[in-house]
């Protein structure tokens, strides 16, 4: 059974390591500030007791006042999973650091989010639209998108 | 990478194909040879019962495609809804069967026939009388086990092959 790690434990560890990086702590997730996302992700991946080597998915949710980017991680070695989230409040030019350097699997998914939600991933080597054609106006998955 | 097994694997494979040459083919010739379709077939039309329908429009709310259009009026004398129009655009219908499941009064059935190709999209719209059950438009047993029992048993390919090898 994959164990979903408790948000409090991880948040404690992260707070110790990167003070001020945690925005909110949920039951099975933490919300980190987007500027410290890369450092947190690297810590989660490379720490022996956590070893989140497997990247399940990344997605984004539009909550009108902010975008929430959700990363689900799993560890094949320890068989546990965890969710980290980050928020960007800028609607015009939302930017999140790309985790493609840590997990290759984020490649197409970040492009997909860029395409449909309009969130830019800094450091992505090939950030182009994935499904829609170049020159398409708007980002369909945003809640305020109208034909 | 080597030619490891001296071509034995090649010959084994050829034995399998030559055996199939002697076996009976598993296909059936459609327009002449018709197999019995499943008793629960969701054919591409809907069967509607005017008597049972109360005009509650649950089917229209459930339909994920919005293919069902129902117009009702209140009959004040009998104090009940009366269905004025019941129209299904089977061109939009995806035969998911959710409306049949949702109907609280068992007034809706999936159709059992399947050869309903038309030349124009407009011909695919069924309304009122075209939706009633008739000998040409039997109802399917989908979600209605009492109808399913009366329909012919489905022909299965697993039975067919065993039959022919004898």
């Amino acid at each position: 059974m994959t164990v979903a790690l408790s948000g409090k434990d991880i948040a404690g560890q992260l707070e110790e390591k990167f003070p001020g990086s945690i925005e909110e702590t949920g039951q099975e997730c933490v919300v980190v500030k987007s500027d410290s996302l890369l450092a947190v992700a690297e810590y989660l991946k490379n720490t022996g007791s956590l070893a989140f080597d497997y990247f399940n998915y990344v997605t984004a949710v539009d909550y009108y006042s902010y975008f929430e980017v959700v990363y689900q991680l799993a560890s094949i070695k320890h068989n546990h999973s965890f969710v980290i989230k980050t928020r960007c409040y800028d609607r015009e030019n939302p930017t999140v650091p790309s985790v493609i350097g840590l997990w290759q699997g984020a490649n197409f998914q970040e492009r997909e989010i860029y395409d449909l939600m309009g969130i830019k991933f800094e450091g992505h080597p090939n950030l182009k639209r994935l499904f829609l054609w170049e020159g398409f106006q708007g980002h369909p998955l945003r809640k305020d998108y109208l034909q | 990478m080597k030619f490891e097994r001296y071509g034995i694997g090649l010959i084994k494979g050829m034995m399998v194909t030559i055996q199939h040459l002697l076996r009976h083919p598993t296909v059936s010739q459609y327009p002449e040879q018709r197999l019995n379709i499943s008793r629960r077939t969701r054919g591409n039309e809907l069967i509607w019962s005017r008597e049972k329908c109360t005009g509650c429009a649950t089917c229209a709310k459930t339909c994920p495609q919005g293919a069902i259009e129902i117009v009702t009026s209140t009959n004040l004398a009998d104090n009940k809804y009366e269905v004025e129009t019941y129209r299904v655009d089977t061109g939009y219908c995806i035969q998911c069967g959710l409306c049949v499941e949702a109907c609280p009064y068992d007034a809706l059935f999936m159709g059992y026939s399947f050869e309903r190709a038309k030349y124009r999209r407009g011909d695919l719209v069924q309304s009122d009388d075209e939706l009633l059950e008739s000998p040409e438009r039997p109802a399917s047993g989908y979600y209605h086990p009492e109808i399913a029992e009366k329909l012919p048993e489905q022909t299965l390919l697993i039975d067919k092959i065993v039959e022919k090898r004898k």
Partner: protein
Amino acid sequence: MTTTEMMTLKTEPFMLNFGPVHPSTHGVYRMRATLDGEVILDIEPVVGYLHRGIEKLTEERTYSGIIPLTDRLDYISPMSNNLGYCLAVEKLAGIKVPERAEYLRVIIAELQRLANHCIAVGSFLNDTGAYYTPFMYAFREREKIIDLFDMVCGQRLTYSYMRIGGVSQDIPDEFLPALNKLVEQLSRWVDEYDFLLMQNEILLARTKGVGILPRETAINCGISGPVARGSGVNWDLRKADPYSVYDRFEFDIPQGENGDCYDRYRVRVEEMRQSLRIIKQAMNDVPAGPVRADVPHLIRPPKGEAYAHVEAPKGELGYYLVSDNSIAPYRCHIRPTSLINLTALREMVKGWKVADLIAIFGSIDITMGEVDR
């Protein structure tokens, strides 16, 4: 100029489009390949020709109205898609599924795995050039499975059989005897299949050592399913994170060693045997009882979010649902197995020949409906 320089042929790379209309891109996938003669220097995948905006559509539909949409994701194995979605909603709303429905779900999902692997193996062998023979045999066997699906749900491709809180209807009386017969025939057939091509020298030469996906890359790229297991990753959600009643059955997880095309093919054939094993165990103790929990048709799950994943035939298929306590989900993200499995394609095909590109692509087994959504 030295002699060696004079001897070296000057070549010039050229671009070639594989797809979107090509016999073996399994739909409308397009690879913009840079070739040097027959050798592939680079490929760039181009997707989106089948994009229907399913994730956007889900935001306007009721929770049960999404089930027919999930059929159209991976249209080779709709039952697994249904199952994954229903699990996610059940997790979100906290619904307990009756025992009988759980068993039926497992049987149906494993049959679906068999049907999917029939197509995967058949079309992979077809891609290596076996002229439609294994393809036809595989489709014949799939047909038998489809017959059973037709029997339980009345449709042959878009089943929509699973419902939130169970399955749509109970199985008919003739289902279990037919299943018994099917399992018996299928295990015979898998052996015959082995005989046809498993030891064929040409197939071995074409697939062994071709398109190697190392274990580390597989994990790093988030690859799942038979492709990952072919590379030796011991990761099967049926064992690692058992959903439904999978923890009650005994089965093995086949794994490859080298991560080449042949291993992926082998893993699929072995998985078919394991699926048959699960079905045999499950069909003997299907309990009696209801097949559907009492769930309202327009269900309103409480505010919150849930992620549920299943081991679909192609890999980990997940649904991330966010609910705002209305009749439609606020957001439904689908973790597309096929799209993520394609991540490593570029590394896998570099330096191989055109013929290998097709074989490697075929061995990943994708469905465009799921890639583009």
